[in-house]
């Protein structure tokens, strides 16, 4: 066994005197060349568990384990000095979540790479240098010899993550721990990094501990998966078993609440897990999932279930004798029918250019954040905007909201230029819900004040009625009454997002622009919020602009989709059409990279080229040409947005030939859906 962890517990004394029992009785092991994926929601103790292996926990953390062995070395009794010289960086390589901050910004990457080797092995600088170049080459950094002298900030996030991987591999470790290595990255890059890790582990025969909150990411790489909840492993099994035949109610709930193309019908309510993850300040005397479990019975509240084996490699902690049957949520048929009304919002060729300074010594340069975007949204419809980070989604949203004036082009709201509205008039027509629930509520005000503010500002409603209206809104978004006058600091992310939604509804607007409303939330909470939005959309007859980088979420919500790349809309049309038969190479790549719970055959044809979308260095001509697998000479010219069948428009020179190939893709998706139904049937 490469790594054996038995009965690992971690306690954290907090400043307010309590002790957080962050990780309790965790057991797992990894064999040589094997990959264990650990999944769980935020705060479930994944990182602490991983950090405890090379004993990198915070100093005040108290860690105890019956066994903690790497490659036969007992780590529990080792001194700090021995650990540093024999385990860390040599036996165990570690990759951290944040590629932006995990490298020291003031030293060149060459120095950071070579020092890893030189501090452990008697090698010359030259040898280390060569090894570093070799590894950089292997992880896919172009012209590595030249880039050795570069500093971390000169690389993109994906490149930095590759450098981190190279650094972890410098001393040929037996075990590689990757703590959310792709969370901060775009899906296309995420896919590349995960594939790289998978290749490397097979190639080098390393053990890999892959931590993620993204079940799809783990599904594609791991051999075995452990699900953590509130500091405990509640279920562990081989990947196929876990995703196909999970037995713990939490795992099941989690798997169902993730919108998945093809699994959930667009617009239906998602099965949810109520509430949020809990923290424990003492050894729990009950099942940790009891509070949120639909199947909980008396025993669950009295006794913590033992971690027991269901099967040879399948184990879990639950009192239920047999696996519960996953149930489907009924969606009222009315919710699915979305009538299209008059045009509510229209953008005509809007662009936004910022001027940014490249550096202290550099002059300001223009940055084209949004380029020539035209959209049309009818009352009652939902338009989704999707694209990777930095492609201009939020900027576009700000222009649609009238918060910023486009440098060229116009936005019409209800037939009138949005700039021509009085602020109060505009507020009654359009509102927004933001991405980050932590910055969208004023921390120095109470929840009720925050929701009341738009009413006070518009003064449309008599002051006496406002409080009652606020209470009814908060009721509608499902915020418990006891929190109506709480300050935002006391709310969880999901609750905050509910407040933000209530605020958006306060002036009873026709249009709500949601800028990534769920991307900061855990999957179980994400499902709650998506459901809430779906319900409200019905009840208030809302028109939505829904922004996201997650194609699956978009697919679930949208009637129409606009795919953005580097500020341009590259594909725009009805949702099913685009998801079923993407035409633009970028849409194709996006779809191929979106993690799903099944293992998918690598789609070599649509493998996007490595690189980054840098708005400061836009390629000549087609904005996607620098990463496009179908690139040819014609791409040096900017393609026009041309119409295709089904009311779809695509901005690509080779769209015609790709549309042909779409037929095959359609069939593929069809068969996948078929398989899906099969599995479900089997479980039933």
């Amino acid at each position, binding site marked *: 066994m490469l790594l054996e962890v038995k009965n690992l517990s971690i306690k954290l004394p*907090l400043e*307010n005197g*309590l002790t957080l029992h962050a990780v309790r009785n965790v057991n797992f092991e990894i064999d040589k060349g094997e990959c264990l994926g650990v999944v769980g929601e*935020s*705060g479930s103790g994944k*990182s*602490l568990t991983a*950090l405890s292996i090379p004993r*990198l*926990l*915070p*100093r*005040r953390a108290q860690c105890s384990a019956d066994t903690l062995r790497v490659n036969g070395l007992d780590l529990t009794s080792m001194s*700090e000095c021995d650990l540093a010289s024999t385990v860390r960086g040599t036996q165990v390589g570690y990759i951290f*979540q*944040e590629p932006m901050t995990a490298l020291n910004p003031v030293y060149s990457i060459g120095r950071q790479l070579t020092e890893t080797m030189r501090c452990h092995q008697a090698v010359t600088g030259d040898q280390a240098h060569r090894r570093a170049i070799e590894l950089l080459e292997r992880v896919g950094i172009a012209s590595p010899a030249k880039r050795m002298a570069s500093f971390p900030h000169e690389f993109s996030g994906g490149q930095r993550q590759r450098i981190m991987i190279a650094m972890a591999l410098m001393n040929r470790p037996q075990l590689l721990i990757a703590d959310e290595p792709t969370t901060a990255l775009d899906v296309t890059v995420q896919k590349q990094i995960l594939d790289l890790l998978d290749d490397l582990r097979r190639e080098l025969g390393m053990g890999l501990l892959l931590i993620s909150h993204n079940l799809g990411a783990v599904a594609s790489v791991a051999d075995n998966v452990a699900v953590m909840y509130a500091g405990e492993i509640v279920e562990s099994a081989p990947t196929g078993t876990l995703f196909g035949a999970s037995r713990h109610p939490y795992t099941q709930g989690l798997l169902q609440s993730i919108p998945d193309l093809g699994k959930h019908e667009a617009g239906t309510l998602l099965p949810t897990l109520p509430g*949020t993850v809990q*923290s424990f300040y003492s050894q729990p005397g009950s099942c940790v999932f009891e509070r949120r479990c639909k199947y909980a019975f008396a025993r669950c509240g009295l006794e913590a279930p033992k971690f027991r084996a269901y099967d040879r490699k399948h184990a879990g902690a639950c009192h239920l004798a047999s696996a519960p049957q996953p149930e489907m949520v009924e969606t009222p048929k009315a919710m699915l029918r979305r009538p299209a009304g008059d045009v509510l919002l229209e953008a005509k060729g809007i662009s936004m250019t910022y001027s940014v300074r490249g550096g202290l010594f550099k002059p300001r340069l223009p940055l084209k954040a949004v380029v020539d975007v035209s959209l049309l949204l009818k009352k009652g419809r939902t338009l989704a905007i999707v694209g990777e980070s930095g492609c201009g989604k939020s900027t576009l949203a*700000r222009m649609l*909201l*009238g*918060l910023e004036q486009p440098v060229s082009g116009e936005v019409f709201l209800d037939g009138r230029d949005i700039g021509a509205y*009085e*602020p*109060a008039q*505009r*507020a009654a027509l*359009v*509102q*927004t819900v*933001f*991405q*980050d*629930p*932590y*910055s*969208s*509520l*004023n*921390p*120095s*005000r109470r929840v009720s004040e*925050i929701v009341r*503010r*738009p009413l006070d*500002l*518009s003064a449309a409603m008599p002051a006496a009625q406002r409080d009652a209206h606020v209470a009814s809104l908060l009721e509608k978004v499902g915020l418990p009454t006891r929190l109506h006058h709480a300050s935002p*600091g*006391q*709310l*969880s*992310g999901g609750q905050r997002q509910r407040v*933000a939604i209530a*605020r*958006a509804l*306060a*002036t009873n607007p026709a249009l709500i622009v949601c800028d990534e409303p769920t991307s*900061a*939330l855990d999957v179980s909470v994400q499902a709650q919020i998506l459901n809430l939005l779906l319900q409200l959309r019905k009840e208030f007859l809302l028109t939505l602009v829904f922004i996201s980088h997650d194609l699956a979420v978009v697919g679930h919500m949208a009637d129409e989709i606009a795919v953005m790349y580097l500020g341009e809309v590259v594909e725009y049309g009805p949702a099913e059409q685009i998801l079923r038969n993407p035409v633009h190479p970028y849409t194709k790549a996006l779809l191929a990279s979106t993690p799903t719970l099944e293992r998918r055959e690598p789609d070599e044809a649509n493998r996007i080229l490595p690189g980054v979308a840098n708005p400061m260095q836009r390629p000549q001509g087609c904005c996607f040409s620098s990463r496009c697998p179908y690139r040819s000479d014609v791409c040096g010219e900017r393609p026009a947005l041309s119409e295709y069948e089904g009311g779809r428009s695509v901005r690509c020179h080779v769209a015609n030939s790709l549309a042909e190939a779409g037929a095959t893709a359609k069939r593929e998706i069809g068969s996948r859906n078929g398989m899906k139904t099969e599995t479900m049937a089997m479980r039933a």
Partner: protein
Amino acid sequence: MTEIALTTTANAPADPENRESLPTRIFRNRSVRIGGGVVLAYIMVALFGPLIWTTDPYAQDLMMRLRPPAWDARGTLQHPLGTDQLGRDVLARLLEGARVSLTIGFCAASIGAVIGITLGSIAGYFGRLVDHAVMFGLTCKLALPSLLLAMTLIYFIQPSLTTVVCVIGLMHWTLYLVVTRSATQRIRELDYVKASKLAGASARQIIVWDILPNLAGSLLVVFTAEVAVSILAEASLSFLGVGVPSPIPSWGLMISEGKAVMFLNPWIVLLPGVSLFLLVIGVNLLGDGLRDVIQPQTRD
């Protein structure tokens, strides 16, 4: 050897149940308690001291000059802390001096606050040209040697308590400006400000309702720091003879006037010096404590 704080995902909610309210945390802080106690004690002394110890701080008694404090063999109980070179009661002057120092500290810091916060929020909120203009003003202000200017202004305008307060206030607004501006710039970009804008709030409404309340803590910290700085500035200016005019019993002036006889009568500089020192340390402790509680991330 070193401690690393685990960066939990920034979004992990602080456990709601285990958050104490800000006032509770403030009052539990040891620095706040000690510093606050000292400051409170000084305020009490300044308010009520002269009512209890009614000796006139300006009355001279030429026969009773340079008496040491009562515990010295040559001291008298009539002047518990002795007398100065003009035979004035040191205790009475110290008590009066507390009024002077506190008045100057609080008033000057408030003047600075009004200037700095106004400029800072305007510059931070509107950005661009306004910001450039304010920042240019700030650079000029920083470039001008403020002590030198303060000396010149006070000396030539006519040294008086009001002049000193105004000039010191005028010299100490930069920190407020910097803090307000950067916080405003940061908050301006936050989503809740955009939400307010979208709800139709005007710039003034946003600054007053959304931005400034969130700065209250930081500004309070700056304010305490500036109170200490102003008190010290007044003392220094008075010491140099270009501050509060005599015979007003400013501690700095008392030290300046007493320094010639300090070799044999060290209490004459020690007493006002210690009073000044303790007050400033109290204010600073209070400020540090507040900062620890209010902005734990920037904890020193």
